[in-house]
């Protein structure tokens, strides 16, 4: 998700918060300083505070176990109220206080504003929540990593599924011309073309709400596609699978989490059987996720909030990287992050060259007997 910037917050309050939140108590050299930045006050605080809690819990666990290579974690917690103009101050402050790695920021806009400052100082930044694709894909921020899937990740998940699991080579990409659906389809097309393994035989948009999709269905058949990747929402998806059944197409249907909705199964009925849709990964069966959630309950006696598991995972990944690299040098950290897999609440992850976590985010589900079943 993208977090909107709030205009309501009074910036003086932010300054007060920043002044108050400097618990610089460690002795230099004996500690590794983790900056924690995000909205900790104001109306978006609920997105930022769970990350602070995650940082505190992981830091305590690591410190209780003897620290990272003998060094204790020291947290520098800074509020950016989710505003880009304040986030630059936050970043400058963290950098000048000697933060070696940063957990944050939370909002995409604030993260983007803060990143150049960290980049100049060679500080590793890992966000649990900033999903804007450009943050990693622009290549502008080699110091940036994240433990949440970017907005385009599910296109990649779908494409990989089609190529690797289903082994198809001719794919049609269809979308509903909307921001979400078309964005998804554009990424799917891009990934298919880049893979070199499959050919995009058709790339088109349909008009949402049209009475009849048989023409596009015929076109899909003529294109010889083995699968259709559809970007959009369930009303069009159920019409298309219905028409495909009517025209006796055997083409596989794969879509996004706008379709992974029970309404799709309800409306499309038996026509939905066998269709695939990607959706957020189910962490419930991950034992580490249970551990993280229980740790939060035990420490704060409350339910964890948004991005808690992502922040917890980011902390684990950074701690592991520092441990293996033996320093907080950016190049050394990057190398570990990109090669070493870490077990975290969001899965067994490592990072790709751009900084996105591989193995995080979306899974593909198939409709089987009126239910979405996760495909492993």
């Amino acid at each position, binding site marked *: 998700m993208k977090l909107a910037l709030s205009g309501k917050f009074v910036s003086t309050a932010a300054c007060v918060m920043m002044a108050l939140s400097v618990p610089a108590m460690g002795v230099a050299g004996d500690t590794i300083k983790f900056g924690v930045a995000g909205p900790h006050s104001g109306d978006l605080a609920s997105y930022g505070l769970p990350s602070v809690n995650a940082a505190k819990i992981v830091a305590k666990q690591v410190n209780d176990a003897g620290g990272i290579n003998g060094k204790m974690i020291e947290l520098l917690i800074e509020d950016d109220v989710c505003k880009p103009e304040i986030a630059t101050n936050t970043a400058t402050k963290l950098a000048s206080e000697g933060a070696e790695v940063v957990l944050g920021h939370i909002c995409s806009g604030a993260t983007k504003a803060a990143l150049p400052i960290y980049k100049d100082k060679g500080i590793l930044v890992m966000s649990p929540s900033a999903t804007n694709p450009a943050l990693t894909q622009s290549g502008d921020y080699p110091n940036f990593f994240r433990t949440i899937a970017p907005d385009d990740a599910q296109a990649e998940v779908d494409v990989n599924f089609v190529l690797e699991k289903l082994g198809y080579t001719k794919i049609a990409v269809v979308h509903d011309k909307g921001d979400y659906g078309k964005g998804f389809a554009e990424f799917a097309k891009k990934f298919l073309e880049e893979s070199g393994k499959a050919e995009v035989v058709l790339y088109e948009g349909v008009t949402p709400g049209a009475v009849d999709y048989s023409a596009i269905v*015929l076109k899909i058949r003529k294109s010889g596609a083995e699968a259709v990747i559809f970007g959009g929402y369930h009303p069009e998806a159920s019409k298309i699978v219905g028409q495909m059944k009517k025209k006796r197409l055997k083409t596989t249907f794969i879509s996004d989490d706008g379709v992974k909705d029970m309404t799709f199964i309800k409306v499309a009925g038996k026509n939905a059987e066998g269709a695939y849709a990607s959706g957020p990964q189910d962490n419930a069966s991950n034992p580490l996720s249970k551990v993280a959630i229980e740790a939060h309950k035990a420490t704060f006696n409350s339910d964890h909030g948004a991005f808690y598991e992502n922040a917890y995972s980011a902390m684990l990944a950074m701690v592991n990287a520092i441990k293996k690299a033996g320093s907080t040098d950016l190049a050394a950290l990057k190398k570990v992050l990109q090669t070493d897999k870490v077990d975290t609440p969001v899965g067994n992850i490592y990072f790709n060259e751009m900084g996105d976590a591989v193995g995080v985010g979306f899974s593909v589900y198939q409709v089987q007997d009126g239910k979405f079943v996760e495909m492993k």
Partner: protein
Amino acid sequence: MDYFIELLFSGLTRGSIYALIALGYTMVYGIIGLINFAHGEIYMIGAFTAFIVATVLSIYGFPLLAIIVIAGVAAAVWSSAYGYTIEKIAYKPLRHAPRLSPLISAIGMSIFLQNYVLLAQTSDFLPFPELIPDFEFMEPVAHIVGSSDLVILITTTVVMLILTYIIKFTRVGKAMRATAQDRTMAMLVGINVNQIISATFIIGSALAAIGGLLIASHIGQINFYIGFIAGIKAFTAAVLGGIGSIPGAVLGSLVLGLTESFATGYVSSDYEDVFAFSLLVLILIFKPSGLLGKAETKKV
């Protein structure tokens, strides 16, 4: 060549869908010169009525044919009641008002009915039962033209023939034509103009309801908003064919459906609407009254 035939049938089906709705637009316009924007909503209400009746009947285990007939009749009656009432409430009091007033009233009626169904039923999409089964004799050609396509094509043809017969050869039809030509004169020769106008609304609404049943069964889903989108396209088709003309409405619908189908098939579905409306603009430039419409002559 196969592909061409497939697209041709796809276009014909789509055109027939538009035609079932466009006929109601064109009939009302022919008689009282009003564009009944609430007509799409009548179609939607027909689909909802058929949905409710068909769901209830299938719970009681009625055979499919009985369900189609009963649901069709119920939808036609119920939609006709709506059409009749709308005319009495929203249009009749404005019959002597400037032309813009009933038009605004029609748009108001359309918005009212949409929201009424939204509140009374649901905003969600509902799965419409497949009332037209896959006929076995159609199986060899099912990849080109399906059973529901066939039923829609046949229904539209039959409906158009019956309508043409009614208007050309029956007393009601004669009275309709008289009312359309000159309402005052028709009254003077003893035609009950109000009754004729009501009859027009009832016939148009019943057609829309049958269209609602067939189309919803073809698409497999309904919600409160389907009438608006289908209505806009049907209205376009009616204008294309010459609004006020019954064969024109069917011709316009088929032309529109085929254009969209071929545009999707040979160019890109991104440009489906671009082609459809460019065609409309072109035809109206060269033939302002539509394909089969009669040019209005101003009496001095």
